[in-house]
């Protein structure tokens, strides 16, 4: 009866937790009690609960965690990059193409009448628009980079809070195992938290005996060992100002490859810097080339041409953000080569830059359209990786469900089975009681009723 009662209580616990996330159904292992020798005969001694077992698969759980790391990484990567790609969205007319082409078109227009002051003003306006477009695109990229940086700090805080809880649960699981109890509830909670942790950072799970798990990043930095957690800290990089992730004094930023942290770090330290560097290279090469052509010519006042744009910083870093027009007077555009006001030869030279490979072996527009392709392709690749990862994760979820999920019908059947066994055992007790009463009442006038 006691065994059946335990089984009933496990079953009802399963039903109660049917919708608890991460709960693994528990089963009861019933076993015969060793028989005793009675008058030369082996007589059975009934049933006992040998153990209560949580039905879970640590292998599937680990696979799920790995998929979660991938999925969260792509998700946070896409969060930023989908906003980045709108900065270059040529399909909706947002993008640098129109302002670059606009600048060269204004030069074309001026070439039809190089002495026309209003056309010269048109060139300065178009140049200012182009500089503004480069500068605001770069500023928007930097602001995306900063928001990824802010996410890094938040994620590190969450990682620390999770590893502290996991370390505590690690202790509980070991204790339960040491005292021969079912650690299932603690292990389920720990699995849930490890899965949440996987959403933030790449995690390796190493069984450490006694049900305890050692957690490290895939790069090998300790997160949880036994019942102790290792806090991550952040520290601003002296040059970039971006937060670096520090584990026990070591900078592990570049080795973090999974989870939201992995995605944010990739956006902040790789993707956006690469886009910015392409933009800088485009801006600085355009500025330098236009400047040197302008310097080779003569302006409307007959003076030698000067810098058209404010010269970009040496090396080009920051050129897009700082792009600005140096000329203030439309007459300073050096359209002429021979000094006459109607000569457009130098404008032609400036126009020809459009078709010259002045940006790392490419024409300005080709360099830009390659950048557009690169960004679109990165986002599109991440999107397919993410949906692939989602499909795999769902498949694993289903497998986990098939092992650990509570099936109400199955539990209902168990319930009836254990209920009937309990009733039968109670009947047996009743019969024994009645037999005992009969025995006690033998030869008595007063009777004991069973």
């Amino acid at each position, binding site marked *: 009866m006691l065994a059946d009662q335990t089984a009933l209580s496990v079953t009802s616990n399963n039903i109660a937790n049917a919708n608890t996330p991460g709960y693994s159904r528990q089963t009861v292992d019933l076993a015969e009690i060793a028989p005793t020798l009675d008058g030369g005969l082996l007589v059975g001694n009934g049933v006992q609960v040998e153990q209560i077992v949580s039905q879970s698969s640590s292998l599937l759980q680990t696979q799920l965690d790995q998929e979660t790391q991938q999925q969260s990484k792509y998700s946070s990567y896409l969060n930023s990059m989908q906003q980045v790609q709108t900065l270059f969205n*040529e399909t909706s007319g947002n993008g640098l193409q129109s302002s670059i082409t606009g600048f060269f078109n204004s030069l074309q227009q001026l070439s039809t009448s190089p002495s026309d002051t209003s056309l010269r003003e048109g060139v300065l306006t178009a140049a200012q628009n182009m500089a503004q477009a480069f500068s605001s695109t770069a500023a928007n990229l930097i602001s995306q980079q900063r928001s990824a940086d802010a996410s890094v700090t938040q994620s590190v805080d969450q990682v620390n809070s999770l590893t502290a809880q996991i370390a505590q649960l690690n202790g509980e699981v070991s204790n339960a195992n040491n005292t021969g109890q079912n650690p299932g509830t603690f292990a389920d909670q720990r699995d849930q938290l490890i899965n949440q942790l996987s959403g933030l950072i790449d995690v390796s799970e190493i069984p450490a005996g006694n049900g305890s798990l050692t957690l490290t990043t895939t790069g090998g930095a300790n997160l949880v060992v036994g019942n102790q957690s290792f806090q991550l800290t952040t520290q601003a990089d002296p040059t970039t100002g971006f937060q670096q992730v520090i584990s026990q004094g070591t900078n592990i930023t570049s080795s973090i490859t999974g989870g939201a942290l992995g995605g944010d770090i990739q956006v902040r330290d790789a993707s956006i810097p690469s886009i910015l560097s392409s933009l800088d290279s485009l801006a600085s090469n355009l500025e330098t080339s236009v400047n040197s052509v302008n310097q080779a010519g003569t302006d409307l006042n007959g003076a030698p041409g000067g810098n058209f744009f404010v010269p970009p910083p040496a090396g080009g870093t920051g050129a897009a953000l700082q792009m600005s027009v140096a000329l203030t007077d439309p007459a300073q555009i050096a359209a002429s080569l021979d000094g*006459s006001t109607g000569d457009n030869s130098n404008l032609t030279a400036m126009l020809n830059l459009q078709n010259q490979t002045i940006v790392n072996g490419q024409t300005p*527009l080709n360099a830009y359209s390659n950048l557009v392709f690169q960004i679109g392709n990165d986002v599109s690749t991440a999107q397919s990786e993410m949906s692939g990862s989602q499909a795999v994760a769902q498949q694993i979820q289903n497998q986990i469900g098939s092992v650990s999920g509570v099936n109400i019908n199955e539990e209902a059947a168990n319930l009836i089975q254990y209920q009937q066994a309990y009733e039968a055992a109670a009947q047996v007790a009743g019969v024994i009681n009645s037999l005992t009463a009969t025995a006690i009442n033998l030869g008595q006038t007063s009777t004991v009723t069973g």
Partner: protein
Amino acid sequence: MSVRLNPNVLPDLLTSIEQAQQNQQNAIEQMSTGKSVNNLSDNPAAAAALVGNDALTSENDQFLTNISDVQGKMQAADSALNNAQQLLTTAITVGAEGANGTMSAADRQALAQQVQGLQQQMLGLANTTYQGVYVFAGTNVSAPPFVQDASAASGVQYNGNSGVTSVQVGEGQSVQTDLPGDQLFLNPSGSILGALNDLANALTSGNGLDAANTEVQQAFAQLNTQQVFYGNALSQLQNSQNFLNQEQVNLSSQQNQLVGANLTAIVAQDSQDQVDLQAALSATGQVLNLPNLLSYLK
């Protein structure tokens, strides 16, 4: 024992619903923008190709504007030269009249004054401006190219230069838009201004009229020869214009191929998505209402 299945099928069903809704949203976006590529990631190669396509379209628009600006300037020059022809025709008539032996000195004087008037008008034509720019000044466009100078044989001094202007009217294609003024009005093989000056002098003095008349005729012939340049250039501009207009149509159709939405296909896909969504919703509804064993254990 049968294979144990995941008792919780809701996540699968919810994913289907989400997927169907996502598909519908994409279809709606494509229908509302008329474009199949609304983000770079929808089709990175098409988006990159679009950059080139849009730039070409915009450059061609500029070439078309260039052509119409240049046409304006060249038509102004061409019509000035037509007027110059008329002036020379008049000068030829006047010269022939003056060569008539019965002319009195006073009559020749009157003719000489008439030719001097023609000279002034011709000088005005040689200093024609278009939008504030002297069109027969070479590239020295800011000052009048021809000024009177009694000491010069032609009676004028040329302050322009021999520069010419070329303007791009297509990818790698440019058109020379002018001839230097001295080549037109002071050409050694037939100087218009020189001939008119000589004619006026001959009429005044009564000497060398025949030679002066020959000069005017040579100048007339030379002007006709030079004017062919403007006729050719204007027709070249017309050709470029036609080509660019056709090119714009091609670019626009290419753009449509790159990023245009196939509305028929989208509408068909959308109704399919609608069916999928209905199916997923109805399956989910049924699963939520399925009885379990406990329902029968009463």
